[in-house]
């Protein structure tokens, strides 16, 4: 028999799982084969080394991240339960979790950023979960079919509600960004401010357009696109502050590069 045919038996011998017959055959081969004896010794050493690897302990900071995840998920589940009138155990996770926005690396502002994103998540969750209720409430008292005026009113109410939720989320993110603004390079801060100004102008123009044409899908899309861009820019700003805190030059350069793209 060739050595390769005995090799699996060597592992079984190391683990003590080789049959009596197999062990007898292998031992007979080992008496004649120095290579297999060496391999057996190595396999035993390897197993001993593996068992002796040190036990690792997760850093305490990891619990802070896990807790932030849990709080965000549990809050989202709570909001969904409230809107659906369901008991706790029937809540299902929302696809596309906000948790991907939470920085995975250590950072002083991670908790603040998570809290701000949670504002967005819960707000958006409540908005979308309650969305059908708005037109229903507006239509029910008068007739089965809304008049054009009622439709416009309900659309306006819906838009106002969504707008408020976005603004609330933006306010939270702005607060977080403000906390770490001192860390930013003045030139970068200037670019950021300029970009925020451009987006704010787009938001104002979209709102003006919506006031004159509340049912215009283009105007609606334009407003929410601008709001989302502002949230994206603020999130990038917070990421940049986090990278500055960590002293990660590559990460900083990457975020700075994205800041100019609004």
């Amino acid at each position: 028999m060739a050595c390769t045919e005995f090799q699996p038996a060597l592992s079984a011998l190391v683990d003590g799982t080789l049959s009596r017959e197999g062990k007898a055959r292998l031992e007979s081969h080992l008496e004649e084969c120095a290579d297999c004896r060496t391999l057996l010794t190595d396999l035993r050493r390897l197993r001993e080394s593996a068992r002796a690897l040190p036990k690792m302990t997760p850093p305490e900071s990891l619990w802070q991240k896990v807790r932030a995840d849990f709080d965000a998920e549990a809050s989202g589940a709570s909001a969904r339960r409230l809107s659906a009138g369901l008991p706790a155990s029937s809540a299902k996770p929302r696809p596309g979790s906000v948790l991907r926005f939470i920085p995975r690396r250590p950072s002083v502002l991670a908790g603040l950023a998570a809290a701000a994103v949670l504002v967005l998540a819960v707000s958006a969750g409540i908005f979308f979960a309650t969305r059908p209720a708005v037109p229903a409430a507006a239509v029910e008292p008068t007739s089965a079919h809304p008049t054009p005026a009622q439709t416009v009113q309900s659309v306006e109410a819906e838009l106002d509600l969504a707008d408020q939720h976005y603004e609330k989320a933006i306010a939270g993110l702005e607060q977080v960004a403000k906390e770490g603004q001192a860390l930013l390079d003045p030139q970068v801060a200037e670019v950021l401010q300029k970009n925020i100004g451009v987006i704010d102008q787009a938001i104002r123009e979209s709102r003006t357009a919506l006031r004159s044409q509340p049912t215009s899908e283009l105007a609606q899309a334009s407003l929410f696109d601008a709001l989302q861009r502002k949230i994206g820019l603020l999130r990038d700003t917070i990421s940049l502050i986090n990278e500055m805190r960590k002293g990660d030059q590559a990460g900083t350069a990457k975020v700075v590069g994205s800041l100019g793209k609004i």
Partner: protein
Amino acid sequence: MSDIGIGDRELATRCLAGDREAFEGLYRQHASRLYNLTYRMAGQADAEDLLQDVFLQAYRKLGTYKGDSSLGTWLYRLTVNLCLDHLRSRQGKMAKVTDSLDDDDAAPVMSPGRPAEAAAARLDLEQAIEALPPSYRSAFVLHDVEGYQHDEIAKLLGIAEGSSKSLLHKARLRLRNLLQG
């Protein structure tokens, strides 16, 4: 290694209801053991992120926990699966040759003393484990590091017991060659 804990279902229910204290209890009880698994399976660089994902996924999936096994076993299985997904994803990204969990011919068996082509320098065991393909690494870590038996590994990985033995042996040979390199 099954250790069905008293009150596991109650703990799961409390976690699902948003009880942070209960969730922290779950974390404190199992994090160290699971961290060792993610550390050996995914490597130091990804171990923390992976464990964070484990607890996130655990919260999301706790509704499916029926109490048939202990929460510890349930979490361990979840961690193994996430580690494998992670390793396969990473391997895919690196455009390396993929291997199947129960494919005995996934990689050639090296003869004793043959140097590993990829290892020009001597690597320590931790680094060598990280260099193993996902299936080899799973079998080696679960058996030689974590102390699981082949029948348990077979259940965890969803493979035949014979495949577990074969993967372990090939992993050991690969490691030996890497360490000799």
